[in-house]
Each structure stands twice: as structure tokens, then as C-alpha cells.
């Protein structure tokens, strides 16, 4: 079954730049997909369309049965609760501990305290940071910080995890550490993962589905693909 369906999508920004031209694709539930391409290829815009940070100028974006393009601003939170998002810059709150950072996501949606505790500890265990719950983000390595961000993204059991260059700030070892965590989540939780990256090594090693974008056009959508120029 398809979790995401993108039909005839075009995205033109207000400044006249067109980031995506006539994009058509479908992503199956439970898959792990890389979105690759050079800068300006439309990777980030594609991810942004999926979590309704941007609206398509034309076409349909359906995520988990929800027509994202038609979603009113007021109702965006309904979509966001169904997915997790991870960024290159982690976006953690420095004044909160690891535990509090992850719990924050559940507090915001009004979850009960005891349920928060159970879910947060489970998420932190899944990313291998159960021993760092009381640390502050500044005391962690980049890889660990990104894993906290991943824990926050998956704590509400989303069907879909979007990652926009999650390894962009990390050295190869830490990158692999993060990728291992993502692969585990994909396997054990069945979470669909879409990850925009330009890290060749990771894409070639992981042998996952690959969507290649170039200047806003879909060039290739390959099962078990590699990063080919």
C-alpha cells in the first residue's frame, strides 16, 4: 500500500524560481527511500511539501490519505502528529535535558505524564541513549544530539519519518551510527523513512530505494539504488 502519492506536483516559489516540475511518484508503506541530487535539485522542497511547510503550486500530495495541499493552516498540526521530522541542525532545546527534549513533543500535544514517561524511555532506548537521559544537548556529540532529535521524531510512533540531510553535520563514523539507528527504526517499528541527502557513501552502502532529482525533475526512482552521477 502506498503511504505517499505525489501527482503532477509543481512548486514555484514567490520569487519565480521553480523548484519542482511535474513530479509523479508513490512511496510504499514501510519503505526506506533516499532522495538525492545536487544543491538546487529540489530535495529539500520535496521534503517540505510532504510535511506541509510548503504548498504545491499545482498537483496533489497525499500523505497517509490526507491531501496535504488542501490542508488549511489551522489543521496542519493533524498532519504533523502523523509524522516525525529530523533536520541537519538537530533543533534541540539547549535548556532542556535529553529526556525533556523528547518529552516536549508529547507535552505539546497534551499527552498524559505517565504515558509520556513510557514512550520517551522507549524512544531513547531505540536510539541507544537510555544512559544519557539527564544530560543536556551541549554535553553530547553531534551524532548523539541527532539521535536525540530522532528519538523526539519517533516518540509519537509516526508512520512516516522525514529526514532532511540528517548526517550533513556529522563525520562518517557518526553518520553511520545515525544511519544504523534509522535502519533499526525502519525495521523494528515499520516506520517509512524518507531521507534527503547528498552523502554518496551512505547511499551506496545502504542499498535502499533512491529517488534522484535534478533541477526539479525526477530523473530516476530505483529499488536498491546507488548514488550515480
Amino acid at each position: 500500500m502506498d503511504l505517499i502519492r505525489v501527482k503532477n506536483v509543481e512548486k514555484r516559489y514567490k520569487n519565480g524560481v521553480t523548484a519542482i516540475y511535474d513530479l509523479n511518484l508513490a512511496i510504499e508503506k514501510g519503505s526506506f527511500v533516499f532522495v538525492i541530487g545536487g544543491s538546487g535539485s529540489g530535495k529539500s522542497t520535496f521534503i517540505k511539501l510532504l510535511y506541509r511547510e510548503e504548498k504545491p503550486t499545482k498537483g496533489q500530495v497525499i500523505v497517509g490519505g490526507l491531501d496535504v495541499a488542501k490542508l488549511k493552516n489551522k489543521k496542519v498540526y493533524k498532519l504533523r502528529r502523523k509524522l516525525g521530522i529530523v533536520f541537519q541542525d538537530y533543533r534541540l532545546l539547549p535548556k532542556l535535558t535529553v529526556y525533556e527534549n523528547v518529552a516536549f513533543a508529547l507535552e505539546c500535544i497534551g499527552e498524559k505524564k505517565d504515558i509520556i514517561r513510557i514512550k520517551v524511555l522507549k524512544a531513547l532506548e531505540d536510539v541507544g541513549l537510555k544512559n544519557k537521559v539527564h544530560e543536556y544537548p551541549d554535553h553530547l556529540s553531534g551524532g548523539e544530539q541527532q539521535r536525540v532529535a530522532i528519538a523526539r521524531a519517533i516518540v509519537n510512533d509516526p508512520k512516516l519519518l522525514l529526514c532532511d540531510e540528517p548526517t550533513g553535520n556529522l563525520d562518517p563514523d557518526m553518520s553511520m551510527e545515525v544511519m544504523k539507528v534509522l535502519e533499526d527504526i525502519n525495521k523494528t517499528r515499520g516506520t517509512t523513512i524518507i531521507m534527503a541527502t547528498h552523502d554518496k557513501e551512505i547511499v551506496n552502502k545502504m542499498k535502499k530505494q533512491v529517488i534522484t532529482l535534478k533541477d526539479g525533475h525526477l530523473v530516476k526512482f530505483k529499488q536498491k539504488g546507488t548514488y550515480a552521477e
Partner: protein
Amino acid sequence: MKPIRMLGRSIRDAVKSVIRNFSLSLASISCITITLIIVAIAIVASFNVQNFTKAIEKDMTIVVFIDNEATEEDVEEVENKIKKISNVESYTYQTKKEVKEQMQQESEVFKTVLDTWSDEESPLKDTFQVKVKNVEKIKSTALKIESIDKVSVVRYGEGMVDKMVKAFSSIEKITYIVVIALVLVTVFLIVNTIKLTISARSREIGIMRLVGASNITIKLPFIIEGMILGLFGSIVPVIFTTYGYLAFYKHFDGYLYSRLIELILPEPFIYQASLIVIVIGILVGMIGSASAVRKYLKI
């Protein structure tokens, strides 16, 4: 349960934020305090003015004297015409005989003097006593009545009372303008306080949006923060109103200048006035923060 939990969280965040931006919060609170003290004075003054204006209005009467040669039909016609004037609230009719009896009851001197005339010779006249709806228009009403046929003289409480009512009503208007101006300044200050809070928490707000916090969840803490500022700002004005009015009332013994101007009893008036001050404080805080949220929290 969930709304209560979210409300609790919002209140906690709001209190934290008031403490975190203490100096700016204090500036807003001080501004609200000053505004509300003036608002409180305006409320106390305007309620008292209303109170004694009403008392005066109750007493203000136009006395209409009818010509001696008027027949019963003429009197009836005068009555019909008075009835038709829009500002007339009510009227009573007294024949000269009734007037004579009333005057004789009022004083011994009148009694002996009036007794010297027979009913036919009496210098008194039949009268209408007219009460008006709006005292400010009493003069024009009196003039209208005077122009009616068979009406000889019209008297109303010209002079002092008239001028006093006018003076107080213009004082009231000036107070309203000052209060409105001050409220606007206060709202502006609160907008800025909340704007600072919003920018200090922009990262947090961004994350809240990403993880699916609803708009109301994001907005509520800021609106509550404004309400807290308003509430704190009303503490001093409430104390000022309560004790200030009590002292004022005691000092003047319940009357201002003359027996004509009676002050409102302190209880329950001070409680009502305090409540109004608190409500205005909270409302001003809420309006300020709501407009800041709308302007600076791009949702």
C-alpha cells in the same frame, strides 16, 4: 482532562516567561498600574456623577402656569400638547385650589395670607408639574411648553443645577478620552513585552509546530502571560480604590460641598469598582497579547 492539562501547561509557561523577562514585565505592570489608577478614579467619579445627576433629575420639574381665563377645554388642550412633547416623562395637574391647600399646609404665613382671598380672587394659577426624561434638554422643553396657547409662565430649575450638570458631563468626557489614550499606550507596551517573549521562544515555537502542537496550544501561553500582567497591574489600583474611596467618603462625611451632592455608599460600591478595575486590567492584557500573537506569531 486534556484541555485542563494543556491549560495548566500554558499557565506554567506564562508564569515562567513573566519571571524570565522580569524587567520588561515590570515595565508593563507599572504602566497598567498607572493606567488603572486613573481608570479607577474615572470610574469612581463617573459613578458618583451619575448617581447625583439622577438624584437631581428626579427633583427637576417644569412648572407650567395656566392663564386665569382658560376654560376646562383649554386646559385639556394644553395637557394634550404637553403629552406630545417627546422629552416629557410624566406630569401632574393641580388646580389653583389644590395649590392653595398645599401652600397653606406648608406654612402658617401662607395660610393666613391666602385666606384673605376668596377662590375667585386668588392670585394663584392652575399648574402642570412636568418631569422630563433628559435634564440636559430641560430648557428647550420649557420653551416648547411656553409657546403653547393659554400658558402664561413656565419655570424650571434654571441656573446652578443646570450648569453643574453640564460641567460634570464635560469632565466625564475628558476623563474618558484620557483613559482611552492611556489604555492604548498600555496595550502598545504589552504588545512589545509579548513580542520579546515570542522572539525569545521562537526556536521552541518552531519545534512545537513541527511536532504537531495545535495553534491554540502555541498561542495560549502568550495570551495568559498578557492576562497575568494585567492582573498584577490591577493589584495596586484595587487597593487604591478601596482604601482611597473609604477615606474620601469618611473625610467628606458622605457629601461633597453641599447636601445636594451625595456620595455613593462605599459598600458594595468599592467591591464593584475593584472588580471593574480587575476586569479591565485583564482585558487590556489579553487584548495586547492577542494582538502581539496575531502580528508576530506567524501561524
